[in-house]
């Protein structure tokens, strides 16, 4: 039919509708009149007219099939029909909507996180050009060792792959001048940082290349959060001066609220102050030293058209060239190199697997929900088969009926989709609160158009998935059998039972996959909890401090080793005196386990040639004497530090077992001498230090990470600006922070105390992400298990109730209840076995994606696989048992008469 006539049909529909009615009426009347004329009684005449005509409605329907409006009419009619059907079954409708709304809601919520974190490009122009630049020592397999200023300049000027490169140097800074000293998250950058990212200030301006000076620029840029926290959003903030680490800065501009530094901050919270430096003058060494990797790394923007792989190749060549040029700074054994990582990968790479696994799991739950609904619909469709068969016999088209039945499932799915969306929007804040706080880009999660589109598609998809099989089943072409079956009311066709059973099998299989996934995570978690951390976190409170480092060394109150050592010593003395405190210690930031702080140094062992082998590298930590006793980390050999190990005495270190074993496998580490690189201020080489003891390993990088070789220095010989106060206390850890702050500030009122946590909180925080994944997957798996059990129960109960007649006959023939039970259970057992087998294979195929989330458990861990399968089998059999038992207890007489 031509488009033209279709459109004409569209325009003329209402006219046609009445025309057609009238025309058919005329026809009937003419026939009836003729009939009467030939002598029929009036009633008979009309009846004959109708009989000859056949189905008036059908004739109309056929005549009008062609019009587009007809489609819309059919749709509306179907919707009315569907709404009527649902209203008549409010129980079914509400169960279906609840199941689907929860399923779709969970999917939409998860997708909104996946979308914001993984799919959404970073909010910068050409985000694909942004890379993180890391320096690695490939020879000693040490990554991210930091960058020296001359290396930064070489990358900027000689590499030829970057449009721009900027240091990203997160530090703590002390904000003084207010009532109390406060601590801010501070990021040192190059002046080109903001222009490179393509970010404008919302107020004032950002610093640019024109502001460049060798040291720190006076102008700083503050975050929107800091602007509100410190200045209440006052627009007169521009030009105001603030004192950070003793230095005076002027506020140039305020960043927009949407801006977040695409990288880490020092303490894990948002960066509040951005300052630019040339890194070539105080507080940085002047002139810069190539071997001194004071910068923690950089962010760069690749030139347009240069892929990261090409850039990496160019940088490898540059590194090789520099290593030849400066053989002293880059011994060949060290194999220095520069590594590029896409900023987005760097930010979210660690959580990608977890998010995708959770997304897959929540999708499985929805699928299981769909299968359950499909089964419900299928059971209902069986009872509707007679209706459908009659309608088909009366001439209803098959397509039309399928359309009608599908409309019903689409209506259900759409209502559920809307409910789900409302739920997600309403509960957004609460849901986000559930996610681990350090999930990157969490603040970017929102109900974006992409999320809405996903919600729409998943609702439609859901409707198709749970509606199609029942709809097709209901209108299978064998209406004749349906009519017969319906009339006898005995049973459901074999075909339908096969579909039901297939659905249950898939349900069991999906549940098994989810349960095994959750089981593997649970086992990992158990293993993790069983790991001995090498310290005892109970009853320990920690708090952080930062001794300000002014840009001008002369203004530094803690410039000398002695002054810093004296400060720490005084803090230990005062904190120890707090009532309830049994022990107090101070260490630098790397002394706090699972805190993500690293400080690595290469060292030389006396009597071993420096680059004959891989250069020894160790994590370096400074601690006061009570540190080990406080954390209950045992001494293996030698002695602990004492208060006497200060700068006047011979330099001594403790090493951990890993380091001792690695370099002195014969166990003779005690008394050996090592040397750190660099020179003393008087120009002499750094002195040899003596190993006075070996302490037990601690899980400093986390319970699931291997222990790195570690060297402990005495805090009184190598005092640091960054510090963590430890106290083992019987008092209330809640008030310990305030007490410590008071004591510290009575030593120096300008030093803020922040990040007060119990050691147990530190460990819990480290486990948070893992716990989150475990809990969520556990919830999903439990829901899946519940749904699957309901599904099995429902299908079995339905099967046996439809077979009551057969059971009655069997009993009449002499079958005992036990025999019936056996038959019924065997049937269930087969279904379950198939489901478990499919799930087993499926699990084997997908659990390897969990690899990175597992600890000490293989993805195909046989114990988990078998135990979980047994558990699921038991629960499924139980779900089967109840209806089977009921079937076997049927009264044979009643069963025979059943319908």
């Amino acid at each position, binding site marked *: 039919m031509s488009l033209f006539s279709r459109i004409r049909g569209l325009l003329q529909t209402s006219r046609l509708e009445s025309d057609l009615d*009238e025309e058919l009426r005329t026809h009937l009347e003419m026939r009836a009149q003729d009939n009467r004329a030939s002598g029929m009684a009036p009633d008979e005449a009309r009846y004959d007219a109708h009989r000859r005509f*056949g189905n008036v409605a059908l004739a109309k329907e056929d*005549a009008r099939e062609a019009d587009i409006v007809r489609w819309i009419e059919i749709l509306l009619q179907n919707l009315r029909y569907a709404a009527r059907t649902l209203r008549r079954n409010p129980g079914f409708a509400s169960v279906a909507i609840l199941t689907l709304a929860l399923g779709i809601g969970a999917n939409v919520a998860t997708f909104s996180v996946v979308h914001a974190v993984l799919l959404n490009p970073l909010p910068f122009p050409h985000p694909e050009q942004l890379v993180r630049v890391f320096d690695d020592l490939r020879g000693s397999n040490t990554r991210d060792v930091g960058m020296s200023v001359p290396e930064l300049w070489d990358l900027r000027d000689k590499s030829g792959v970057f449009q721009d490169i900027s240091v990203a140097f997160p530090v703590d800074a002390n904000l003084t001048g207010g009532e109390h000293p406060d601590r801010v998250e501070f990021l040192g950058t190059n002046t080109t940082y903001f222009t490179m990212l393509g970010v404008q200030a919302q107020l004032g301006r950002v610093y640019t290349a024109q502001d460049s000076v060798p040291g720190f620029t006076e102008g700083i840029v503050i975050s929107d959060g800091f602007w509100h926290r410190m200045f209440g959003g006052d627009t007169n903030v521009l030009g105001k001066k603030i004192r950070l680490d003793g230095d005076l800065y002027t506020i140039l501009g305020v960043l927009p609220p949407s801006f977040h530094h695409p990288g880490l901050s020092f303490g894990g919270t948002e960066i509040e102050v951005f300052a630019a430096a040339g890194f070539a003058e105080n507080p940085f060494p002047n002139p810069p030293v190539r071997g001194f990797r004071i910068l923690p790394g950089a962010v760069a923007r690749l030139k347009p058209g240069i892929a990261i792989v090409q850039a990496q190749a160019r940088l490898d060549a540059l590194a090789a060239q520099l290593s030849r040029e400066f053989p002293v700074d880059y011994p060949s054994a060290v194999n220095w190199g520069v590594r590029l990582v896409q900023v987005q990968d760097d930010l979210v790479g660690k959580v990608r697997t977890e998010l995708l696994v959770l997304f897959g799991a929540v999708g499985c739950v929805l699928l299981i929900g769909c299968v359950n609904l499909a089964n419900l619909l299928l059971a209902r469709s069986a009872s509707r088969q007679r209706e459908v068969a009659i309608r088909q016999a009366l001439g209803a088209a098959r397509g039309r009926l399928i359309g009608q039945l599908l409309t019903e499932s689409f209506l259900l799915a759409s209502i559920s989709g809307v409910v789900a969306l409302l739920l997600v929007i309403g509960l957004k804040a609460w849901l986000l609160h559930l996610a681990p706080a350090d999930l990157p880009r969490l603040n970017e999660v929102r109900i974006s158009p992409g999320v809405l589109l996903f919600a729409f598609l998943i609702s439609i998809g859901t409707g198709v998935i749970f509606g199609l099989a029942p709809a097709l089943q209901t209108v299978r072409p064998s209406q004749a059998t349906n009519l017969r079956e319906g009339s006898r009311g005995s049973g459901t066709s074999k075909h339908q039972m096969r579909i039901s059973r297939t659905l249950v099998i898939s349900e069991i299989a999906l549940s098994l996959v989810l349960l095994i996934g959750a089981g593997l995570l649970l086992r990992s978690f158990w293993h993790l909890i069983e790991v001995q951390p090498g310290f005892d976190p109970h009853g320990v409170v920690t708090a952080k401090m930062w001794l300000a480092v002014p840009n001008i060394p002369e203004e530094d109150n803690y410039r000398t080793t002695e002054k810093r050592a004296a400060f720490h010593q005084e803090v230990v003395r005062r904190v120890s005196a707090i009532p309830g405190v049994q022990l107090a210690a101070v260490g630098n930031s790397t002394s706090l386990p699972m805190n993500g702080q690293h400080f690595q140094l290469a060292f030389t062992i006396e009597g071993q040639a420096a680059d004959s082998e891989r250069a020894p590298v160790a994590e370096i930590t400074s601690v006061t004497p009570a540190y080990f006793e406080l954390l209950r980390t045992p001494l293996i050999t030698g002695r602990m530090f004492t208060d006497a190990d200060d700068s006047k005495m011979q330099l001594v270190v403790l090493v951990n077992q890993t380091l001792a074993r690695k370099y002195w496998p014969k166990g003779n580490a005690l008394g050996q001498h090592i040397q750190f690189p660099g020179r003393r201020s008087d120009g002499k080489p750094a002195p040899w230090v003596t190993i006075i003891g070996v302490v037990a390993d601690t899980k400093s990088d986390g319970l699931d990470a291997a222990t790195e070789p570690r060297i402990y220095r005495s805090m009184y010989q190598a005092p640091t600006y960054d510090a963590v106060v430890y106290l083992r206390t019987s008092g209330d850890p809640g008030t310990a922070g305030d007490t410590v702050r008071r004591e510290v500030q009575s030593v120096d009122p300008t030093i803020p105390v922040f990040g007060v946590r119990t050691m147990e909180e530190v460990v819990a925080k480290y486990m948070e992400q893992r716990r989150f994944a475990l809990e969520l997957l556990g919830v999903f798996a439990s829901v899946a298990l519940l749904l699957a059990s309901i599904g099995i129960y429902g299908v079995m109960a339905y099967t046996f109730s439809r077979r009551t007649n057969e059971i009655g006959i069997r009993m009449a023939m002499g079958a005992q209840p036990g025999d019936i039970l056996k038959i019924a259970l065997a049937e269930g057992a087969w279904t379950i076995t198939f489901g478990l087998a499919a799930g087993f294979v499926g699990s084997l195929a997908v659990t390897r994606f969990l690899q990175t989330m597992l600890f000490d458990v293989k993805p195909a861990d046989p114990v988990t696989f078998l135990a979980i399968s047994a558990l699921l089998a038991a629960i499924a059999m139980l779900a089967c048992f109840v209806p089977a038992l009921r079937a076997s207890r049927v009264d044979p007489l009643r069963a025979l008469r059943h319908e």
Partner: protein
Amino acid sequence: MAGPSKTDILQGTLTLLVLKTLARSPMHGYGITLHIQRVSNEILRVEEGSLYPALHRMEQDGWIRAEWGVSENGRRARYYELTAKGSKRLAEEEKGWQQLTQAVASVLQFV
């Protein structure tokens, strides 16, 4: 139902019969059934349920056009009329029918 002397119209021939009927003069639906029945000596019987869909389709295809008129006994009825396009179509259908009957006859006559 349909006696031995009465035959339902072969599928596909309804269009031909309707077009041919309308070629004589415009006529309403009921008239078309009566005409075909009468002219065929009650042998051909138009299935009324399929007449109107067929008429509608032919109208959509532009072979016939419909107009409201008044019937012999003063009843408002929809009269169908052959269009130029319909005449052409009729010629084609007639030709096709001749070929078909001749072909069938040849087979039947072949001994």
